[in-house]
């Protein structure tokens, strides 16, 4: 007979089921795995928890994204508004700008994680509501960092039809070469006063073409993040898509990317990891916490 210790630090949830005349206890763990234990083999269950205050009082986090084009000149990036790239000098007007943020986890001061369930967010500059990433019912306490991914993890690229942010109705999927468009930027640019089109569809989830990037956003000092019971803590984050052209050539030289490959990778990751997806300092900067 087994004795089972269920530690709260594992963030488990429990269900039970009856099938084929056998009662099982089913333990869903946050890492996606499931334990099934026949109930008649269980003597007793002990549930230990770190702090009942911690789990009983819950609050929310809102990550508010504001998009700039370049770090120094503070141009707001918005649909239909011409911006000038500070390094390349290109004048660009975006008609579409969309990208995925996924697999969000918050780490608290004790080193424990709160993990969002179905964690796929499509940020779309044309949809103001998509610029606030809302996370509800986190245990109150201090959080030191958010871990997240730019793009869509490889598993969801090879597992058939998806829904929600990953729905193909969002026009972020390549049908002819299965896989998500992780970032889509379209619009026009000035070339000797003529308006020309640009279209950058960046993707690639495996092998040499992989651009899916895991990142960390740190909350410390003036931007320390505390979740308070029944309150929403708002984190202001400045996003700088200008970094797409940190290493990639001027839009006058390359104005279209429509599949995974070296060009998409250069744009997303950049030389030495200085591109938009990978830049550790300047692509997503925590500016304020309220």
């Amino acid at each position: 007979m087994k004795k089972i210790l269920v530690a709260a630090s594992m963030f488990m949830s429990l269900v039970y089921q009856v099938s084929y005349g056998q009662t099982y206890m089913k333990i869903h763990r946050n890492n996606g795995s499931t334990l099934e234990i026949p109930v008649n083999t269980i003597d007793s269950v002990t549930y230990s928890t770190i702090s009942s205050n911690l789990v009983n009082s819950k609050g929310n986090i809102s990550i508010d994204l504001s998009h700039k084009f370049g770090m120094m000149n503070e141009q707001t990036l918005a649909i239909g508004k011409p911006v000038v790239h500070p390094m390349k000098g290109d004048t660009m007007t975006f008609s579409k700008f969309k990208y995925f943020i996924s697999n969000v986890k918050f780490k608290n001061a004790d080193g424990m994680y709160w993990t969002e369930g179905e964690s796929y967010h499509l940020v779309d500059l044309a949809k103001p509501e998509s610029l606030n990433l809302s996370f509800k019912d986190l245990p109150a306490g201090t959080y030191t960092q958010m871990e997240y991914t730019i793009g869509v993890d490889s598993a969801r690229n090879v597992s058939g039809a998806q829904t929600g942010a990953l729905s193909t109705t969002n026009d972020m999927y390549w049908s002819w070469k299965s896989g998500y468009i992780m970032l889509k930027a379209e619009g026009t640019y000035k070339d000797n006063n003529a308006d020309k089109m640009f279209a950058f569809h960046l993707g690639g989830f495996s092998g040499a073409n992989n651009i899916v990037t895991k990142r960390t956003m740190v909350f410390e000092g003036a931007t320390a993040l505390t979740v308070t019971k029944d309150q929403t803590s708002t984190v202001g984050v400045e996003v700088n898509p200008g970094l797409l052209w940190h290493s990639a050539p001027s839009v006058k030289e390359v104005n279209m990317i429509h599949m995974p490959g070296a060009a998409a990778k250069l744009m997303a990751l950049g030389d030495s990891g200085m591109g938009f997806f990978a830049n550790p300092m300047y692509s997503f900067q925590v500016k304020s916490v309220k």
Partner: protein
Amino acid sequence: MRIIPLLLILFILTSCKKEAIIKPVTIPNLNSDTNTFSFEKPVGFPNPFYNFSNNPLTQKGFELGRFLFYDPILSLDSSVSCNTCHAQQHGFSDHNVPLSKGIFGFSSTRNAPALINLAWSTSFMWDGGVNHIEVQPLVPLTSEHELGETMANLVEKLNKNVFYKKKFKEAFGVETITDQKLLHALAQFTSMLISSNAKYDQVMAGKTNFTPQEQQGYELFKIKCANCHTEPLFTDYSYRNSGLESKFKDIGREKVTQDPADRGKFKVPTLRNIEFTYPYMHDGRLFNLEQVLAFKSNGIQDSPTLDISLKNGLNLSKDEQKAIIVFLKTLSDNTFISNPKYAEPVNQQ
């Protein structure tokens, strides 16, 4: 003892997970008489690649997929359905035309493949660009030369359709039709298009015998063809340049991989029901099996990516070619092309 788990539920409420999973788990009782609808793996077949893990197979899901497969509502102008280019009597390939016609009479660039034993297929399309059976329909649905739709428009159309609102609710319990459920329904139908009852299968099961000429063809087939057209599915799902040309109008797999080593390579097609699926090759250029065997024997065009097994052609005599063709016709499965389960449903709306 059984009360303990109930008490455990209380602990869930103290868990700090965002959404604690408290929903009851139900598992269909496969032994029940009311649920006899299941995927049956034919004897001698390997395990299928598609296992319905995120898309539990049900009779209602299959029937919905069947309705959708035959319904031109899926095309931009309601003129073309899946069935237009994948007809049952032709082994779910096109009506014996090299290139298929989509909306407004637009022509596709490749021959419509036969939809046979797709649950075992590891990739889709001639170039293998699609990695999962559920997302395969996105290509024909959204190609401007085929059904010409957008997924957003298609979902909107279906949600306005009383018949499909009801059918999706019955099949998936949903009030709103999503692209995911549409693709799940289609996958339930297409993955069940199983052909495993040809004379070849009867012979393998010891229920009948090949004629001497069929046997001769089978022996030759095993030596000359089975390396790529591997039994029992009659494909190894690899990509190969079969020597159709030395300068390529269609670069094939290279379009997907961007690798020049894949130039002119296409997926090895199954040979099951090959008698019904003419014309042949990725562009439908060869109209009968005699032409195919003659080409494989002494019409191979050399190029850097030509498959090694075809370097010198298959060098088959006329009699040998004839014997192989006689054998290939033992892969014709009349129960497959006449199975009423796969036929166009009646009383659609």
